[in-house]
């Protein structure tokens, strides 16, 4: 009577959200890394042109 009804849908959604969130954060750091790599490439290219 006092127990919450277990919802498989809610349980799966919570865990999928969590996993997707972890992957998203890793993806965000990948964006940081990619832009930094681009900066390094551009700097060397600019120096070669000068």
């Amino acid at each position, binding site marked *: 009577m006092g127990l919450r009804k277990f919802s498989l849908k809610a349980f799966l959604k919570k865990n999928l959200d969590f996993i997707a969130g972890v992957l998203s954060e890793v993806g965000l750091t990948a964006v*940081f*890394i990619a832009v930094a790599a681009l900066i390094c490439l551009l700097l060397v290219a600019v120096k070669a042109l000068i």
Partner: protein
Amino acid sequence: MIPQLTREDLKIIGYNLGRVGNIIGVLMLVPIVISIIYQEFDIIPHFIAASALALILSNLAVHFLNTKKEMELKHALCVAALAWIFMMMLTAIPLYTTHSTGSYLDANFETMSGFTTTGLSLAQDVDHLSHSINFYRHYLQFIGGMGIIVVALTVLARSEVGSVLTFKSEGREEILRPNVARTSRAIFGIAATFLVLGTVLFAIVGIYEGMNVGTSFFDGVNHAMAAFSTGGFSPHSQNILYYHSFPYEIVALIIFLIGSFNFAFHYAVLSGKRREMFKNIEIRTIFITLMLSTLVIAAGLLYFNVYSSPEILFRKAFFQAASAHTTTGFGTVYPAQMSNVWPNLPQTMMSIIMLLGACANSTGGGIKAIRVGIMAKAFFREVKKALSPKTAVVSEKYHHISDTPLTDTVVKGAALITIGYIVLFFVGTTVTMLYGYNGVDSMYETSSAVGNVGLSCGVTSPAMPSMLKVTYIFLMWAGRLEIMAVLVLVGFAILALRKGIKK
């Protein structure tokens, strides 16, 4: 009118310090597991003795200083400030008794560096330290990054008020869940997730790069603890350079960048609010400042012909910049090379970004991205005001989990803490220069301590003068507490001296 201090005030502080000490006493037993795994039975008595001492002192304090009076903000700030000192001294005991450091002062430096997730190290011969002591160093960073005081007091909280006050006094403004205990558990859950992810990734790369499985996992768990807590300790004296591995550096980058994000941000994204990644003021601020600083540092190194290829610039300039800005402290450049090889421009830029720091309410240190973002927006607002008609109402807002108006109170708060950090920076730089170090190196090392970063240009060493070690312990401590708690403690002490203590 500030009321006189009473004995009850001191009892509240002492009682709560005792509660923290009890948790520390128990936590100091955890590395014994590592001692058993690696059959380092000679180390076990050192942890037992230190733990026992902590438990004796703490239980006596809790029993004899028990008081029914409720904790107020001033008590919470003092508990937060003194707890770091108390924890530093207790946890230094095993490091000193196992001769892992040259002196008890060095051991205190090491544990303060651990708890504040700084990463400056005075450990002697890290490569030959026992596995359990090496684990212990990284473990201190992990629990320090979680805000061990918060954990201690919410686990043992008598009232929500006391817990909230301690939470706020540790520089953690945001409450993620309905009450502080649940918030602490959420923080722990987030940290555990990335600890497991980091350990697995580091271990896989370690095995791939030719290390044996056992070492890969041991180094993996230590680096995961140091990376997520943006601490920067490493089981090897060469730090990340030991591995000579680009994939290892990438894993480190991923984990320590994640570690530098706000816990409220983590909570939002992990709960499904992924748009926060693009709207959050801290993520935007740190992205801009990190990319700009990478540009300046890399350009400087390229211009002065220190490094020449894009790969080298990325692995040295960006890695070091990211390590500095997130206040992690992992290094792929020797400290002496930072001083002798890196030109002044990139080295000074590193000092600046170390002070700017990571996101608020994260494991990172420094002024914090939210304050930098708020002050930048405040500047834009002032420019807008100047360009607008007199009668126009110019308002600005920022997004951090939710949209918040940029009020003068918010800007004032950000500016005050920033000024505090700058004052600490000037004090630390001046003291370092008084000992004969040059200006650029002094600024670098001071920013590293104040911002709880851990990168060194060679100033920090066991041969460093004792008073300089004490200065850096103070800088790491004050930086971690964002100055306010330290100032309240000083205020308490002055009040006690001037007016005495009422019974």
